[in-house]
């Protein structure tokens, strides 16, 4: 069954892709600055480029999650969206707040806390916006004909994301406590509740694409999100090693964050097994590629590369170096960017009625962006490891070390160009579908 209000998702997806494109542009500014070509310094200094780059990431992923929810929840609850009008108002206001924040960063107006740079007055608007979104989703679920585990897990992820935003808004005089509670937001989002969102979207896609029984998929969904929290909650401790928190976090953070890859491994095995088990041959191979790709890449990026530097004795040397950037890029790409691109690839033929399932552009988009991202991760990794040995082991001055590792950023920029080509093709393909129509959704139902 399809529901005409699912077309709201299209505008969220469109906005998300627009912000992704802008995020990449600011990434290039930073890449060139790392190569010693900080030519835009007078207009866009590095701290502005970085705040824009990371905040756009958060914004487009949140828009992607919201769009996913607006597509998935009506179908799962077998009910039209409670208020499409509220969804449009919420989208426009979200974009207005986001764009205001990004402009503000160019004029030195921000909060200056990593990932949470958004100025405080705008924080309150974000909270109101997210509450409007949750109200819409919860009312749709509440009035729906059924409450599925997939919908429940997805909604729990969104609800907890909103709640966990709040500790990041408290002022502390102590940098230690400031940092401690900032990780309540950042870590418990990306290595906690966002994985519920990812798991919910993944389960929905697997049910649709593989045709495996919902009961089987949802059972394993519970196991995976269970593993996520079992390791991820106390795994927050790996951020507390060196910020002035007690030393017991070295043990707790070390043990539980070493277990964190298990959840991602389970997710990858789960997706591959469901695909093998599935008897249904869904024609949308592009969506299948992105779905399985997300499960596998998140295991490598978030699981393996995270585990590579999470133990305290290793992290003592890698903490605050480009090794973190290596892990961060592939983790966000695999776990969250790819799952959003997967649901877009799945939803577009259904909401527009154009069955452009597997053309050359979509294949090139997938492979170019992924190969580009792997290259970028390797470049960050080589630069990071070289930095660790030169600066942290041998005691070479920070700036001199940075001068030595500049060539790796040329490799980074070249790989980023391939990645950008892939994303550009994805966006071109998105526009080829045209706009959503009620006829398409009615016909599909």
């Amino acid at each position: 069954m399809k529901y005409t209000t699912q077309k709201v998702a299209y505008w969220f997806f469109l906005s998300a892709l627009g912000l992704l494109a802008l995020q990449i542009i600011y990434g290039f500014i930073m890449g060139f600055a790392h190569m010693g070509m900080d030519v835009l310094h007078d207009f866009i200094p590095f701290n502005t480029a970085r705040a824009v780059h990371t905040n756009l990431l958060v914004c487009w992923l949140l828009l992607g999650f919201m769009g996913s929810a607006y597509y998935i929840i009506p179908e799962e609850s077998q009910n039209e969206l409670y208020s499409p009008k509220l969804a449009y108002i919420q989208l426009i206001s979200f974009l207005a707040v986001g764009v205001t924040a990004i402009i503000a960063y160019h004029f030195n107006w921000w909060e200056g806390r990593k990932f949470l740079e958004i100025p405080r007055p705008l924080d309150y608007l974000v909270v109101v916006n997210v509450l409007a979104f949750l109200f819409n989703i919860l009312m749709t679920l509440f009035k729906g004909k059924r409450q599925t585990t997939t919908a429940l897990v997805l909604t729990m992820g969104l609800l907890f994301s909103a709640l966990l935003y709040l500790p990041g808004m408290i002022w502390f005089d102590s940098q230690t406590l400031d940092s401690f509670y900032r990780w309540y937001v950042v870590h418990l989002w990306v290595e906690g509740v966002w994985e519920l969102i990812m798991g919910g979207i993944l389960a929905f896609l697997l049910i649709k694409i593989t045709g495996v029984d919902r009961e089987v998929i949802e059972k394993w969904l519970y196991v995976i999100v269970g593993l996520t929290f079992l390791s991820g909650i106390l795994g927050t401790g790996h951020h507390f090693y060196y910020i002035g928190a007690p030393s017991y976090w070295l043990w707790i953070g070390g043990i539980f964050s070493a277990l964190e890859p298990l959840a991602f491994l389970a997710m990858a095995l789960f997706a591959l097994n469901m695909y093998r088990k599935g008897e249904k041959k869904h024609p949308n191979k592009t969506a299948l590629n992105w779905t399985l790709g997300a499960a596998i890449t998140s295991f490598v990026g978030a699981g393996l590369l995270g585990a590579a530097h999470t133990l305290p004795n290793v992290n003592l040397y890698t903490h605050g170096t480009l090794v973190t950037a290596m892990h961060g890029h592939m983790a966000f790409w695999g776990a969250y960017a790819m799952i959003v691109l997967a649901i877009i690839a799945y939803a577009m033929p259904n909401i527009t009625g154009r069955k452009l399932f597997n053309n050359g552009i979509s294949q090139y988009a997938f492979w170019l962006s992924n190969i580009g991202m792997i290259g970028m991760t390797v470049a960050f990794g080589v630069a990071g490891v070289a930095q660790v040995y030169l600066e942290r082991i041998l005691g070479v001055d920070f700036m001199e070390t940075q001068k030595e590792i500049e060539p790796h950023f040329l490799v980074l920029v070249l790989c980023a160009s391939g990645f950008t080509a892939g994303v550009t093709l994805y966006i071109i393909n998105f526009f080829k579908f045209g706009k959503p129509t009620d006829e398409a959704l009615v016909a599909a139902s």
Partner: protein
Amino acid sequence: MLTKSQAKIFFLAGTIIFSVLFLGLSYDTHVNKHDEQTNADKITPEVVAGKHLWEANNCMGCHTIFGEGAYYAPELTKVIERRGAPYVKGVLMSPTPWGEYTSGRKMVAYGFSEKEANELIAYFEWIGKVDLNGFPAKPKYEIKKTK
């Protein structure tokens, strides 16, 4: 074979147990351990003013403190110990972008007043004395530059 309801119990019980543990340890960190480990009694109004300046100018967008931030400009946890207060003051009050002629990377010329520079230095001095469980590690070797 695991049933769906058993899987649900695993998820709910695990989440509740580990959330309670996490909140308990957070309480201990905040209430019982924080003040002693960080010399919280040394957080003067000047240090707090420095922290406000640190955030208002998004210094973390280039530098790191406690190893947290961006990886574009030097780690500042031990900057006073490493460079001394007069040097740091010079950087903070510089009317031209610092580093322009030496490293290729430029720091925004904030041109802080003397009072602001002193507040930031007070903040760095407090930061530098927090017990960080051994971070930043001392380099294992000493090498000499040959050219």
